[in-house]
């Protein structure tokens, strides 16, 4: 297998155990996906890495039909509440992009997939959530 790189910092591939890792404020426990200067909730400046649950619940979605030219449509964009805390935005994969099939409140779990390849043969790995 060729070289792989996760699409974003907060996806850690970790062999067969890909998972999301957040920056957690050591004072108040708020979690963030981006690199941090300070905590927007409490003002703390100390953070630690926190492995997040790979399962959760769809609390909102949209089925996107009109997008930028290089984005295949239709697809399902969703906000997912992860078990044990944290919200993440991602596509819902392995489901027909139809309002009769995608359900609010549906249980989903993290699934990785190849999102592209660079000129050096490195594969970018992205994540979505599939029905659990």
């Amino acid at each position, binding site marked *: 297998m060729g070289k792989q*790189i*996760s*699409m*974003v*910092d*907060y996806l850690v591939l970790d062999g067969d155990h890909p998972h999301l890792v957040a920056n957690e404020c050591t004072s108040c426990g*708020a*979690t*963030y*996906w*981006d*690199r941090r200067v300070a905590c*927007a*909730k409490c003002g703390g400046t100390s953070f630690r890495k926190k492995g997040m649950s790979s399962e959760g619940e769809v*609390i*909102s*979605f*949209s*089925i*996107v*039909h*009109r*997008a*930028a*030219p*290089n*984005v*295949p*449509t*239709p*697809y399902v*964009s*969703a*906000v997912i509440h992860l078990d044990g*805390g*944290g*919200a*993440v*935005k*991602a*596509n819902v994969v392995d489901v027909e992009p139809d*309002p009769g099939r995608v359900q*609010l*409140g549906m249980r989903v779990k993290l699934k990785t997939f190849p*999102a*592209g*390849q*660079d*000129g*050096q043969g*490195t594969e*970018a790995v*992205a*994540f*979505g959530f599939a029905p659990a």
Partner: protein
Amino acid sequence: MSEPVWILGVSMLKFGRYPDKDVVDLGSEAALNAMTDAGVTIHDMGVMGVGCLYESNAMVGQRIQKQIGQTGIPVYNVANACATGASALRTVILTIKSGEADMGLAIGVEQMGKMGLLGGAARARTDEEGYERSGRYGAVMGTEGILGTNLMPGVFAQAGMEYANKYDGVGFEQFAKVAEKNHRHSELNPLAQYQKVFSLEEVMGAPMISYPNTLLMCCPTGDGAAAAVVVSDAKLKTLSIEQQKRAVKVAASVLTSDPWTEDGQVQPDVNTLTRNAADKAYELAGVGPQDLNLVELHDCFATAELLHYQNLRLCEDGGAGEFIDSGAPRRDGRTPVNVSGGLISKGHPLGATGIANVFEVTTHLRGEAGDRQVEGARVGMTHVIGLGSACSIHILERAAT
């Protein structure tokens, strides 16, 4: 309690497309019209606030001065996403409240043409040079369409679906009814970009953009301008009886940003800052939602309007579906919402929108809204929200005469 400030004059150019003009032409015309409406001139102005989002680094205010009058007064060029116009108005209101000026001019203008979907284009998915991490998330490629959507129709669709997830009786049809209503309202507004009526079936059957928002549930891009003249209480008392009678009181002027919420870290939370702004505005104005005779709120997408029924306390928690189903926000309903046609049909030239809302409410409070007049209107609310986010609410009251 500080002295009130007043809207002395307003104007709005018909929203649409002006390929042969620029923002200086449009903003200048709106400014002159507002000053004519107010019965004053540029020489009476002590401050200018100008909102033009896409040219916010290009000194639009000063360029307008070079058309309508270079008097040396301070100009603030303001940018706050879709709350840009309302924020420009607020800089003028605050300057007058501070006592630094007794009259000022707020201008909102935008020229968007047919720019299409807003909210960030996709980056290429391959990189010949080799992937490198960049940005605050260390992304090796554009994430739009892979890690969900951040384009506006989808963002607001998701905001609406989150509400549908929480409350029964809200779905595609309720969202579509909002758009049907606003298109119908616009038929009576000659300043609207579109004045075409569509049936509920046509709204629901239009091309899907981001479920549940169809094409007819999304605001268009376009060009336009609006302006307002603001005056202090003391100065107003020196003006003519006719000017005093047409003046409209700014009972509340509020601006908020996002307090921390968990979901707000991944998806703009358009609710919390709107609720905070509404509560503060009601408190400042000493009125409640039941006192409002009309509301112009930020229906950039049909899903958004439904949320704001609750956020602005126009209905009970969870009652937004029933509110639209009952006809309450229609022009002849209990609390008419977006009788102008709203952003969905009146149009949404970003920088102009906040002041155009003030134009609309002021015109009704003066009893000058013609065919679309909400009879006997005494109190009205304007609301805009710029993603990122900024929320501005103004409550306006007819002069006691």
